[in-house]
């Protein structure tokens, strides 16, 4: 047991950092540093840079474009990308549908989709949630009826992030309405967003952003070869995917970066002549966050090491801890940032529309982004299995209650 990074690992960290510094578009970096989400173009451009380097899909098995790095190196890589910050891989492709296709898909599916995922030639989105089925995912109603070589899909998905950019959507659909349990009779389908009968309705979120959508399916024909895994056994794919998601939604590297930034910002605002960062109460809040983040980082490494030891494919229910605490910490950073902005946190702005820097600002950009970011980040404890669901998982799967 030794938690110290080896010299080789430290060197690797440096290599990743230098690569990012030399290859990441400066404007992308500046915009992200300021707290904006990267645009579609920025995400795609950076993913292609990584793909050329062979770093687009580092977690995938070697034969499929993975790097073969051990968990420590993968951790370092992810942390450096998040902490720089650079755009992260499009999760719906690289972390979600990619591994599902690798684990459950046919050779043809692997060949067709995986390289395009790595290069974001296809932009993917996720069709799991429905208006009636949020936390109770297995109650989903979108139906796929077999009709010769096709399924005919009817129904509605919702909370579909970035569906407006998507070329493809992976969906859970009900293929056997007569199944004994709700989890049975569900299948995992890949659907071309260009298919006739697919329509979108945007949902504007409280921060004024336009991230999410409703997706409607009206007699959409999907070729049978787009079924992943076994018909009616899609729940296996879903469980596998959700467990991967829990690890990734912790986003510890990103939270570290936000925390470092907040500390700098808090050194620049003063009250009564004292920088906020020297206010004892604020400084202790920052320290407390840093401590919890450190604990979570080590917990993450322990969970990953454990999963690694127990063999692939078997998700560790402890990943619920990562999702839970990771998202709570993300929220607390946004709360503290808003507090740091003070009364000028009132000056609102949307995350999606970067203002130019040349006009006379009512408040610095970070202050104007503080409230929308705080609003927007409320989502992280809701999506990917709400934190209440994660507590259920811990209670039932780990504690046996």
């Amino acid at each position: 047991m030794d938690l110290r990074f080896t010299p080789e690992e430290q060197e690797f960290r440096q290599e990743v950092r230098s690569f990012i510094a030399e290859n990441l578009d400066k404007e992308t970096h500046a915009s992200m540093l300021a707290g904006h989400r990267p645009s579609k173009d920025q995400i795609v451009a950076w993913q292609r840079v990584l793909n050329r380097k062979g770093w687009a899909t580092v977690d995938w098995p070697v034969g499929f474009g993975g790097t073969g790095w051990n968990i420590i190196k993968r951790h370092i890589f992810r942390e450096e990308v998040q902490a720089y910050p650079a755009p992260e891989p499009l999760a719906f492709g690289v972390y979600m549908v990619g591994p599902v296709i690798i684990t459950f898909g046919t050779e043809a599916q692997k060949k067709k989709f995986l390289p395009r995922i790595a290069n974001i030639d296809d932009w993917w989105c996720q069709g799991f949630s429905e208006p009636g089925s949020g936390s109770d995912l297995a109650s989903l109603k979108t139906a796929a009826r077999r009709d010769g070589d096709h399924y005919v899909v009817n129904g509605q998905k919702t909370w579909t992030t970035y569906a407006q950019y998507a070329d493809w959507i992976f969906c859970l659909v009900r293929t056997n309405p007569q199944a004994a349990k709700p989890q049975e009779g569900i299948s995992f389908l890949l659907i071309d967003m260009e298919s006739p009968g697919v329509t979108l309705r945007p949902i504007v979120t409280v921060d004024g952003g336009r991230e999410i959508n409703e997706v409607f399916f009206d007699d959409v024909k999907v070729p049978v070869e787009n079924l992943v895994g076994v018909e009616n056994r899609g729940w296996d794919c879903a469980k596998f995917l959700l467990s991967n998601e829990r690890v990734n939604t912790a986003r510890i590297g990103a939270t570290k970066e936000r925390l470092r930034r907040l500390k700098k910002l808090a050194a620049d605002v003063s009250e009564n002549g004292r920088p906020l960062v020297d206010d004892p109460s604020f400084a202790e809040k920052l320290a407390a966050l840093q401590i919890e983040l450190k604990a979570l980082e080590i917990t993450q490494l322990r969970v990953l090491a454990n999963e690694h030891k127990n063999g692939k494919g078997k998700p560790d229910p402890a990943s619920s801890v990562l999702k839970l605490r990771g998202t709570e910490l993300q929220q607390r950073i946004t709360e503290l940032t808003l507090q740091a902005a003070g009364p000028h946190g009132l000056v609102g702005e949307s995350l999606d529309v970067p203002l130019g820097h040349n006009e006379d600002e009512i408040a610095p950009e970070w202050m104007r982004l503080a409230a929308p970011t705080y609003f927007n980040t409320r989502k992280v404890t809701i999506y990917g299995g709400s934190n209440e669901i994660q507590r259920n998982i811990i209670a039932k799967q780990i504690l046996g209650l």
Partner: protein
Amino acid sequence: MDFDLSDEQRLLRDNVERLAAAPDGVTSDRGWKRERWKKFAELGLLALPFAEEDGGLGWGAVETMIVMEAFGKGLVREPYLATVVIGGGLLRHGCDGEVRKKLAGRIASGELLATLAHTEREARHELADVTLSARKTSGGFVLDGVKSVVPHGDQAELLFVSARSAGGRHERDGVSLFRVDADSKGVMRRAYEFADGTPGAQIRLDNVVVPADALVGEAGKGLALIERVTDEAIAALCAEAVGVMSAMGEMTVAYLKTRKQFGRPIGAFQALQHRAADMFIALEQARSMAVYATMMVGESDAAQRSAAISAAKVTIGQNGRFIGEQAVQLHGGIGMTMEYRLGAYFKRMTAINLMFGDSDHHLRKVADAGGLDRKLA
């Protein structure tokens, strides 16, 4: 000690709640409507705090609390806080005789909007941090500087502007308050929306000349007045916050009863029941402190008054954030959408927490003051 509302107060509450619930007030231009403002005037709401000799109703903090709570419930964005509570307060406590009577009358009739332009870009929550300068001339004063977070500063015709006429930055002495016509030469306003949609403005005063009688109270002694009226504003805001919180609580309980997951209403899940119970407790505690603030706002000892008001703001801030965050969480995705009214309440609650000092700021104030008064409950 007496917790009951009088018949008159009950009538006021019912009337205002009815008016505030009218659905046409939210989406109009700049977030509010002149027609509804006129209805407020007709109902006497705009005359509420002014003395009868000034043409007002001579009502007090309890009535303001009743009005503000109803406004919170109805998400009313009309400039009541800025004009009647703050503007009215500055008039009542700071201005004399004819000026007071005349302006109070114009506010009461609905023809004049007023606001306080005080917060500056570097000041954060420190009220004494005023750098906008007031230079005395033979005929009056010249004001020069920028105020940045002025609620309803985009449309108010009467601006109360704080300025430094003497002393260094952060000094209590040397802060003066002036009445400034918003269309004076040199006044430049940049309108924007607060994060919750409330209209606001940055106001630049570029060597604005005001006459000597624009000075409110004594030169250099304006801070005590600003503090007093700020305390009144906080008390009113606490009441508004209680209205906002109770609306969020009610929406959440209703949602828990109707939304079904795993074959039953999610309100049947004990973990969510307990969360709802904690929200209820937070609301009741906040309501108690709003009542406390209302009672203490008239306290003559400024230090005791201020500590009490700070205590209320701490509770409102902490409990309001808790209730808001939990309401969004328990609603799930729908609580995150613009289409659903909960988000607007959540944003209003967040804005309230940023106004006049956040909970940490006020907790420190209470700690520094060494506690609360024993005279009141």
